[in-house]
C-alpha cells in the first residue's frame, strides 16, 4: 500500500509540539530542582518573583490619544497586570512555586497528549478509537486546568486583594475565569464525536465489498 506523506501544516504542528514539549520538560526539571533548593540555604530571600494578578486593576488615569488628524481625550480605567515581589521571602516562594509546577505539569500533559494525537494524524491514522480517546482526554485535561485555575485564582484573590495596599489603584472585584479553556474543551468534545462518526463511516466503507 502506498503511504501518503502528511500535509506540511500537520508536520509543522507536529515538530512545533515536539519543541514545546522538550522546552516544557526542561522547565519542569528546572522547577523540580528549584523546589528542592527552596528547602536548602542556597536560595535566600532575594528572589524576584512575578505573579499574575488574580483581578483587574481599577484606576482612573486620563490621557490623550494622538491620531493622524485629531487628538482624543481618553481614560485608562481597567488593566490587568503582574505583581512583582521585591526580594520575596522563601515562605511566600514555597507557597507559589509548587502551584506553578502543577500548572507546568498540566500543560505538559496536555501537550504530550496533543503530540500523540497529531503524530497519529501525521502517520495517516486519523479516524481511530485512540484518537477519539486522546481528544476526550485533552478536553478533560482542559476542564481540570480550568478548575485548578479557578480554585487557585480565588484563593490568590482572597489572599492578595485583602492585603494589598496602593495609593490610587484598587483591584477589581472580578477575576479572570479563563473561560477560553472551557470553550476549547467543549469544541474538542464535539470534535471527538465527529471523529466517532468518521470512524463508523470508515468502518462501513472498509466493510463494503
Amino acid at each position, binding site marked *: 500500500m502506498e503511504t501518503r506523506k502528511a500535509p506540511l501544516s500537520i508536520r509543522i504542528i507536529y515538530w512545533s509540539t515536539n519543541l514545546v514539549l522538550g522546552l516544557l520538560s526542561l522547565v519542569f526539571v528546572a522547577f523540580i530542582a528549584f523546589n528542592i533548593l527552596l528547602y536548602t540555604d542556597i536560595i535566600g530571600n532575594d528572589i524576584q518573583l512575578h505573579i499574575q494578578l488574580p483581578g483587574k486593576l481599577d484606576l482612573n488615569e486620563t490621557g490623550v490619544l494622538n491620531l493622524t488628524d485629531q487628538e482624543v481625550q481618553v481614560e485608562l480605567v481597567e488593566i490587568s497586570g503582574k505583581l512583582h515581589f521585591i526580594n520575596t521571602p522563601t515562605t511566600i516562594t514555597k507557597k507559589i512555586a509548587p502551584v506553578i509546577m502543577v500548572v507546568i505539569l498540566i500543560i505538559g500533559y496536555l501537550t504530550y497528549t496533543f503530540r500523540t494525537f497529531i503524530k497519529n494524524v501525521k502517520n495517516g491514522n486519523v479516524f481511530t478509537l485512540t484518537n477519539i480517546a486522546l481528544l476526550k482526554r485533552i478536553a478533560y485535561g482542559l476542564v481540570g486546568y480550568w478548575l485548578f485555575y479557578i480554585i487557585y485564582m480565588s484563593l490568590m484573590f482572597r489572599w492578595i486583594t485583602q492585603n494589598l495596599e496602593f495609593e490610587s489603584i484598587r483591584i477589581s472585584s472580578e477575576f479572570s475565569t479563563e473561560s477560553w479553556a472551557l470553550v476549547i474543551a467543549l469544541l474538542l468534545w464535539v470534535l471527538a464525536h465527529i471523529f466517532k462518526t468518521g470512524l463508523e463511516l470508515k*468502518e*462501513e466503507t472498509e*466493510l*463494503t*465489498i
Partner: protein
Amino acid sequence: MAVIVNLDVMLAKRKMSLTELSEKVGITMSNLSILKKGKAKAIRFSTLDAICEVLQCQPGDILEYRPNEK
C-alpha cells in the same frame, strides 16, 4: 444479522475454491473472506453482478433473509 451470505454453499455446489473465485471476479481474497464470513456491512451491485456471473446463479442464491430469533 438477518441477511445470511451463502457464498460457501454456492462455491461447494459449483466445486470452486475461494481463490479461483477471487481471480475470476477480481476481488481480493481478504474481501471475499469478509463476505463469506458474513462480516461485511454492505455489498456493491457490481460485486454481486460479478459473483453471480462467475457462479452462474441469482443474487437470492447468495443472499438469504432469516428473521432474528428473539
